[in-house]
């Protein structure tokens, strides 16, 4: 086989693992979990698109939860879930948008499940239209493009790199920072064709890491679930399932001594942050960093390299794991005194301790 044929074959293969991501005019759908735990991440996502990339994004106050956590913990029927999703699409239609930008991975997987169902079973779409009309008087159109927020950051990763004052390079050694990624299960495990790179060889986060100067480090349990398990975390008695799954991931990534963990899922982000603390309290073990491995999402990392303030803009003080070691390696300028301050810059008070273990010094 000659060389040009091989090239073509490779291109065809890669194209199977790519997806279409809209270029502009997004209707934003927020995440229950990201709003709760990392609201700054959603704020900087909107700011990056609007102020750095010049894109149009509409943040509609009328949208609600999609009820996806209820659906996957089986207290919300599929019929109800479909109708809740239809209402989001109705709001998008009402505002004249055709492209959804989704913050949550559970929602993203859920929207794809609903869209696939409507395609395979048109009677389900008709029933949903009837339910929504009866309940709210609303009608809707199906979005032309459904992208997760990480897809959009991935699409514009090079534009972000071009504007970024910082690179993911250790300023002392000049070496790329070693970054492990964790992809939320519902990003591409249900519909691999809906994720950049598919499910097995996801590129959506590693593409950003490399574009911004870092080194994406593979590790054996890269594809393992963080352990949310929906009902398993929601029920206190079952949380050992959740922490065990995260522990498996930490054990797997520890030998590579990552400088940080990059996530695309709001829930995974929170769990990989909090379970490091919980495991340290239970087992006395810290898996990396000075007192834990920083865990950032795609929006947070994009904002960081773009020079947004870690506290006032990105809200990284809401993480249990300290981010300062990462900021220091990159050379991000920040004021440590502003970490635990309020709206007017006044000191509020501060957590008993941050990171995995209370410091003894």
């Amino acid at each position: 086989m000659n060389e040009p044929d091989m090239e073509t074959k490779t291109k065809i293969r890669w194209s199977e693992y790519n997806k279409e991501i809209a270029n502009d005019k997004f209707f934003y759908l927020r995440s229950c979990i990201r709003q709760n735990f990392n609201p700054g991440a959603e704020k900087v996502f909107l700011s990056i698109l609007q102020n750095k990339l010049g894109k149009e994004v509409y943040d509609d106050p009328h949208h609600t939860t999609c009820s996806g956590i209820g659906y996957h913990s089986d207290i919300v029927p599929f019929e109800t879930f479909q109708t809740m999703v239809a209402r989001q699409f109705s709001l998008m239609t009402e505002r004249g948008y055709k492209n959804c930008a989704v913050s949550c991975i559970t929602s993203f997987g859920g929207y794809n499940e609903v869209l696939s169902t409507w395609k395979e079973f048109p009677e389900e779409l008709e029933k949903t239209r009837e339910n929504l009309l009866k309940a709210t008087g609303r009608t809707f159109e199906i979005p032309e493009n459904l992208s997760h927020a990480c897809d959009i950051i991935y699409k514009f990763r090079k534009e972000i790199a071009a504007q970024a004052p910082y690179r993911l390079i250790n300023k002392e050694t000049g070496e790329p920072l070693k970054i492990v990624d964790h992809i939320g299960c519902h990003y591409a495990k249900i519909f691999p064709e809906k994720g950049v790179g598919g499910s097995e060889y996801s590129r959506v986060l590693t593409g950003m890491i490399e574009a911004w100067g870092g080194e994406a480090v593979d590790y054996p349990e890269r594809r393992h679930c963080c352990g949310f398990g929906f009902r398993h975390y929601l029920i206190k008695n079952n949380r050992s399932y959740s922490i065990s799954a995260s522990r498996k991931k930490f054990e797997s990534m520890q030998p590579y001594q990552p400088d940080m963990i990059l996530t695309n899922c709001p829930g995974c982000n929170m769990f990989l942050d909090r379970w490091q603390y919980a495991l340290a309290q239970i087992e006395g073990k810290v898996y990396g960093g000075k007192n834990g491995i920083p865990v950032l999402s795609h929006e947070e990392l994009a904002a960081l390299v773009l020079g947004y303030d870690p506290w006032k803009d990105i809200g990284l003080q809401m993480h249990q794991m300290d981010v300062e070691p990462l900021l220091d390696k990159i050379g991000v300028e920040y004021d440590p005194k502003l970490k635990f301050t309020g709206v007017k810059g006044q000191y509020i008070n501060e957590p008993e301790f941050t990171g995995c273990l209370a410091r003894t010094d």
Partner: protein
Amino acid sequence: MGICQALHKQGSFMYSDLNQRLKADVRLEEGLQACMNCGICTAICPAAEFYEYDPRSIAITVQSGNHEKIAALLESDTIWYCGQCMSCKTRCPRNNCPGLIINVLRKLSQETGAFIKSRMGRQQYLIVKSIGANILQFGYCVHPTSLVPATHPEQGPVWRWVYENMHEVYAAVGANLDGDGPGAMRKISPTDLKELHQIFKVSGGLKLYQTIGHFSQLKAIELGLTDENGDADMEKYTQYLLNE
């Protein structure tokens, strides 16, 4: 009719048309096309690693159409072990999705009342009380006021700090907690919440909450968790579930 008889009657009803009711759910058609029993779903499943759980055998049982075995599944802890990661979907060579089969089984287990016969199934009442209530009350699955540090010790000192200084911290990072207009954790307006309630009413969401509540009350009475009038004491039942 006694409670046990009522439960038995529900059980009898359940056994009469199980396969038909499973097949009425389009997700079964999507999730179970032709299982060849290879077991790759079990090999990849995080729940199978943690619990005595085997999605392969669940797919085979449902595919067999054996009423007694399916009924036993509906009453068992087994169907509640799945963590819904859907890793099984990715790896199945036949494009089946055992995680989706689980959704269909859980729905039927709740509709028929079979869920109260297993410890893991009974926990559904707790999820309705937390996530279910949050959806209707706030329009969010999760709300910071419901994440009480005492019941979420794993959330750690930073979350406690956020919780105790909630409005100041959210405002400092540009959120709009309980505020009007757009933004993170904005208040969902009464008009929007009303639409949400109507959707739950029209599409069966409220009915499922009520069904889970109804069977949970029957179980509470069966366990003797009652008030002075002999009615179910659901606070006692909640404590029972939390310690079960």
